[in-house]
């Protein structure tokens, strides 16, 4: 905001970058006045929330995140409920040995690890490829509007 007010040619410390310019070029116009943190208003947020872009973003998030979360919880409860169907000391489905001494229940428990990693990868990929570009566009729109 502080524009040099000293006449061209005057020595300044540190040297003004415009010092070497011809006098009729001085002063240079301000490039842009950037407000560091735009302050969008509530009504703007309501407009954005109603916009097609935002609705698309919200739908895109919920349509993959909610089903995945439900699937993960069902898969986990399958392991938990399957385990309580067994009785101690009795043969049971989850207690059946499937790979050497590894029982089916332990195998399903251990399989929760790769499936969780897979769901993590799926989330990151979805967010990076589909949702982030959309979110960025809306965010820039909001910041531009707030500035105007």
């Amino acid at each position, binding site marked *: 905001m502080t524009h040099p007010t000293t006449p061209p040619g005057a020595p300044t410390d540190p040297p003004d970058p415009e010092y070497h310019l011809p006098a009729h070029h001085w002063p240079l116009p301000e490039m842009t006045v950037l407000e*560091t*943190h735009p*302050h*969008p208003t*509530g*009504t703007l*947020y*309501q407009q*954005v*929330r109603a916009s097609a872009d*935002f609705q698309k*973003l*919200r739908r895109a*998030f919920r349509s993959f*995140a909610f089903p*995945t*979360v439900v699937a*993960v*919880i069902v898969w*986990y*409860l399958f*392991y*938990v*409920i*399957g*385990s*309580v169907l*067994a*009785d*101690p*000391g009795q043969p*049971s489905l*989850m*207690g059946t*040995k499937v*790979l*050497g*001494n*590894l*029982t089916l*229940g*332990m195998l399903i*428990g*251990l399989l*929760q*690890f790769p499936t*969780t*990693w897979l*769901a*993590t990868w799926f*989330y*990151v990929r979805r*967010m990076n490829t589909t949702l*982030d570009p959309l*979110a*960025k566009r*809306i*965010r820039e729109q*909001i*910041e531009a509007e707030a500035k105007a």
Partner: protein
Amino acid sequence: MTGTGNPLINIAIFGAFVLATLVVVIRVTRNSEKRAGSFYTGGAAFSGRQNGLAITGDYLSAATFLGVPGAIAIYGYDGLLYSVGFFVALLLALYLVAEPLRNTGQYTMADVLSFRMNQRPVRTAAALSTLTVSFVYLLAQMAGAGGLVALLLGVTDPAGQSLVIAIVGVVMIVYVLIGGMKGTTWVQMIKATLLFAGGAVMAIWVMAKNGFNLSTLLGNAAAVHPKGDAVLQPMLQYGASPITKLSFVSLAIALILGPSGLPHVLMRFYTVPTAKEARRSAVYAIALVGTFFLFTLVLGYGALQLVGYDTILKAPGKANSAAPLLALNLGGEVFMGLISGVAFATILAVVAGLTITASASFAHDFYNAVLKHGRSDPAQEVKVARITAVVIGVLAIVGGIAANGQNIAFLVSLAFAIAASANLPSILMTLYWKKFTTRGSVWSIYTGLASSILLIVFSPAISSPTWTNPVAWFPLTSPAIVSIPLAFLAGWLGTVTSREPADAELLAEMEVRSMTGAGAAEAVAH
């Protein structure tokens, strides 16, 4: 063999850990600014990778490193539930809370809960629940410190153990006062690295002794368990009756839903600058924590095979000493000292993180927002936070001495159940149910908090150690299966009976900000 290593070596290693971490805390905080942001969130300047390591550190507490291998060594299959549930829970945190939290909040869980509500009632409720959950979790860690020290330093008389718990408390207060969140995060990162490395070395060592064949390990472990093959099958611990089986399901629910409501884990998503870094930190944490939990399976059965069932149960810390005893068996006294030093550092770091969370919530949510109507100056707020940290530290020492000898995993599961009941329903409804109102939020938090605590108090876990005692009129050891639905119900009931509907402007702002990150820079700069 009931040897517990060489107490002198253990004390030396413990001392070295404390000194080294203190030096780190002092160094990393020397040049940082004295602002509320730097005390609470380290200035939100950590990268996703660093923060992922710190989340791993918060997540892998004494209960995880000492409790889970112990539970697996004694109960086998049923102990594995802790690993699976606790791990899958991180995925829910990533999917549903990590990024919205970073985008809409600043320092505490209550920032999000109160975003579109009346500030004072919601912040009061959230601060109370944060303090409760953090304090119960803190007690568990302090009790763990007592048990660990009993085992390692040969300190068996209660007065000596109380002294050690007091020392842990004092060191923790020093970390927090000097380092704030920045120092604590660095301690977490160092400790997570050491813990991960220690777990990996031990797991590989155990596998090498079994020809790198999991089936061989399981077979050898089952061969020395008094119940034999039952240790590979479900319901050795929880199979006694339909009621105990329901307790298992209830515990499973608390495990998977609790972490997304643990304030000290949620606060970790504020120590990064953007939602994208919050995502990255959750991903790193999921990779590391998952791998570590796979180690715990090997450590648990390895301890059973190599140390033996009776030796573990006769050791001073009982099941909690399975991992250190395994280290002694594998690598001798010095190795055991190193592993125990890591466990000790784990307790210190987690305790410091909990203290920051609790003091931040008290100062930011209660002192500033409720008592001062949001007008206290940041310097004053940080001062209150520091005083709170000292008070919490002293309370934790007293409570830790009282809780010494309690089962760590049990105490932690209580903290989980309270977090899953009091915090998570309200967080989810705030973020994903547009009609949710202030009254719904407050009712949900208080109902979850009160019901989970009351059901714990009247459960067999507290009222009596046996299943047959009629004093325990609530028969389950974990309240989650009842208290979580109650909290959701109260949230719904409070919402539909509200006189004023949800604030549409603030709802729009919260939704747009949480999904796009607009205005998040503003939140950091405040």
